[in-house]
Every structure is written in C-alpha cells, then in structure tokens.
C-alpha cells in the first residue's frame, strides 16, 4: 500500500509532469488562461491517463512490441473520444473554450509517456496510482499556472474580480505570459528541489 501511495505522490512533486518532466507543455501553454479552463483540461487529461494506464497495463502482454505506439494511440483515442463527447454534452461552454485541445489530448506527451514508460512495464494497481498521481500533478500545475495568469492578466480568479483599481497586464493572458510563468515556476521548483538533498538529480 505504501508503494502505491508513493506512485501517487511522485506524480505530484518529484516527477510532476509539467515542472519536473516538462511533458505536455503544449496544452499547458494553450489553455492555462483561466482557472476553469486549466482545471477542466486537467480533469480531462486525468481521466484519459487513468483509463489508458489501466487498459495498457492489463493487456501489455498482448501488444506486440513493434506496433505498441499505434496500439497505445488507439486506446488513448478511445478515452479521449469519451471525454470529448461527455464534455460536449454536459459542459458545452468549457468544451467551446478548450476547443481543439480536447481532441489533442490523444497526442499529449504525458498520456503517451506514461503508457510507454510506466503502464507497459508495471501491473494494473501501480499503473492506476501512477495515472492518478500524474493526472493530479498535471491538474495542480495547470491550476497554479492559470491562477497566476488569470490573476495577473485578467484581474480575476475563477471569474471573480479580485481587486479594484488593479490594471491587469494583458501579457499574461497572451502566449508570452504562459512561457514566462512556466519558466519562472520551473526555476522556483528547481531551486526548491536543489535545497533538499533527496530531490537532487
């Protein structure tokens, strides 16, 4: 049980997909303009990660090595389609603002990376916790980035005006703001991990 919990925790911190592995940066850059978008994207990716990790780890011995990537993609695409249709049916606004980036989860490096690097080598139980941890880490990073960007760039948090008289800096809502915020956050995370000898390397 402790080991399973470790698989979950590592996705949050030491192997955080965005800050430590630098995976899945395209959707992070694109949709982190508001907390709602960031959270929605994170949840969608978490569901896909969980589903693909479960299926890939349970049929890993049936998948021929040479064509494993196409097999992973088919599995991932199935779950992405589920998410996409569900989102369209129940959260039409979110689906509209995330746009093309929901179907693009198919090629999200986090999902494919975990299928290839983890689920195809480990058992179902560990893969479930790995998927949940990675998904939670991805969601956490997305919410953090989009909170900073929405707050500084739009003057709101979750759509609520936080301060009056504060003139939001448009730059943070635009693409350069995303790169700037992610760069600075990765810098901070690297600095913090360099402080503890355990996190080094």
């Amino acid at each position, binding site marked *: 049980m402790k080991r399973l919990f470790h698989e979950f925790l590592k996705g949050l911190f030491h192997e955080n997909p965005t800050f430590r592995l630098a995976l899945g940066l395209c959707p992070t850059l694109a949709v982190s303009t508001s907390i709602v978008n960031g959270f929605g994207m994170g949840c969608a990716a978490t569901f896909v990660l969980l589903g693909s990790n479960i299926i890939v780890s349970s049929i890993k011995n049936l998948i021929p090595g040479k064509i494993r990537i196409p097999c992973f993609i088919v599995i991932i695409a199935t779950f992405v389609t589920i998410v996409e249709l569900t989102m369209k049916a129940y959260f039409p606004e979110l689906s509209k603002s995330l746009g093309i980036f929901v179907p693009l989860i198919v090629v999200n490096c986090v999902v494919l990376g975990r299928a290839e690097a983890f689920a195809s080598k480990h058992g179902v139980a560990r893969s479930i916790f790995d998927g949940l941890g990675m998904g939670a880490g991805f969601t956490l990073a997305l919410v953090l980035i989009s909170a900073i960007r929405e707050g500084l760039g739009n003057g709101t948090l979750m759509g609520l005006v936080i301060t009056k008289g504060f003139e939001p800096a*448009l*730059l943070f809502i635009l693409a*350069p703001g995303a790169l*700037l915020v992610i760069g600075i956050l990765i810098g901070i995370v690297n600095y913090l991990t360099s402080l503890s000898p355990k996190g080094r390397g």
Partner: protein
Amino acid sequence: MPDSIFTVSPAPHIKSGLSSRKIMYLVALSLLPAGIAGVYIFGLSSLKVIALSILACIASEAVFLKLRNKDPMVALDGSAILTGLLLAYNLPPEIPFWIPVIGGVVSIIIGKQIFGGLGHNIFNPALVGRVFLQISWPVYMTTWKNPRWAVDAVSTATPLAREGAASFSYMDLFLGNHGGCMGEVCILALLLGAAVLLFTKIISFHIPASFIGAVMLFGWIFGGEGFFKGDFIFHLLTGGLVLGAFFMATDYVTRPLTKKGKVIFGIGCGLLTILIRLRGGYPEGVSYAILFMNAVVPMIDRYTKTRKYGFVQG
C-alpha cells in the same frame, strides 16, 4: 632578482583604460541631449518618468544582486542607470507612475538578472521592459501627448500610426515637434549624442549605418504605392529608428562581435522594422526588430567567425 618585476599573464597585454563602468556612463551622458529635448518638448512630467524608471532599475538590480549573494553596490555600475534611461526614452511622456516602475523591474529582473547579470543577457533589457509594457498595457503605451505648445495637447497618434502622415514637415520631425516617445522625437539631439559615441569610438558605424540604410532602402522600395516610391526620409525621421539604431542595437552585450556580423545584424533589424511598419499590426517595429535580431546574434557570430591570427586554413 625578485620575480615581481615581471608580470606573467595571458593576453591581452595592452588595455585601453576604458572600463564597462566608464562606457556605461559615457553612453548615458551622450543620451542627455535627447532627454533634455524630451523634457523641453513635453514638459516636466517626462522628467518624472525618467527618474522613476532609473530608480526602479537600480533598486531592483540591487535587490536581485543581494538575493544572489553579490555586492548590491554593483547596481551603480551604470548599466542599470542606462537601462532605466533607455526604457524611459521609449515611453510616452505622460503615463501613470507605475508603468515606468514595472517596466524597470521587468527590464532588470527578466531582461537581465535572470540570465546571470550584465554580460549574460541575450536580449536588450530596456527593450524587454518596453515590449512587456507595450503588450500588457497597449492603451497607455500608445497614448501620445503633443508638444506642450500644441493646440490640442491631449493625445494623438505618432506620425507613423496616422493615416496621411504628410501633415508633418521634415523639419518638425527632425526637431521633434510632434507626439511620440519622449526620447525618440528629437532626432537632432539624438544625433548629437550619437556623434559623441562615434567620435570616442564607443560604437562603430557598422550597425547604425546598415540598420538605417536598410530601413531607408526598403522603405523606399516598398513604402509607397508601387515600387521605389516610398518616402524614405519619413521612415528615417519617425519612430524610434535613430534611438534604436545608435543606442540600443549597438548594446555591447547583445550585438554581434565582428564587422561583417554587425552589418548582417543591422540589415536584419532594418528589414524587420520596415516589415512591421508596413505590414505588421503595430505602427512601430524598431524594438521588436532589435529583439528578434538579438535572438539570432549567436548564430550570426557563429557564421562570421574571424580567422585566428597566424592560422592557415587546412
């Protein structure tokens, strides 16, 4: 015989006595005429912008140096002052007080210190600050003030942004008798400062000449209706071209090293400036052009490497 009468050291053995501190202060000094002209044209509010911007730069540099366990007094080596001065010259003369302050902090911290301080920055810090402000608060950054003696002294567009720019005479543009950023309007004052820099050999003519030459050439070819009918003198005298070409593109840290490289750099800046002015979404492109070319400086340096003295091509 004591060893101390011989100094054993690697090259260089002959030093000019010019330190980077001296150069920075000389450049700042050569920018003074343009600043005085700006204050004279737009009134005392522009002096406030200059002071705030310089103070913000020095303060953020000192704080960041302290955080990096370095001597905070290095903040007075002139580079922060120069950055603040250049940033202020790139701002409209009348803006809320916090704009130059944020600009100064962004210039120094994101533009310079994050890369490791003076000598390590890829991009011109003052331009990083300016572009940050330009993208973040476009309304403030493009609300120009007319010269204080003009009838409608509230706000206008720069000549570049105005349709039918022919309403200005070349003399007005040359002397700075129009709305614009405070340090870029008076070409005469800028040229005075530039002459000092060229005369004292702090900058060479390669970058400014190729930059301005390219803007005029491409402005002439593409600027008008049909080819070869553009008003190239207008393109020379408006916007931040002279300020950018003499004082910002020539920044020691972010320009190429060789003469050939400098010419390529200048032509690239000029081409991009005209491209943005004529086809881009912004009326002015000098700052984006210089930043873009800053990014390719390492590549330019790589392909224009000088042959080592005494080595024969194998």
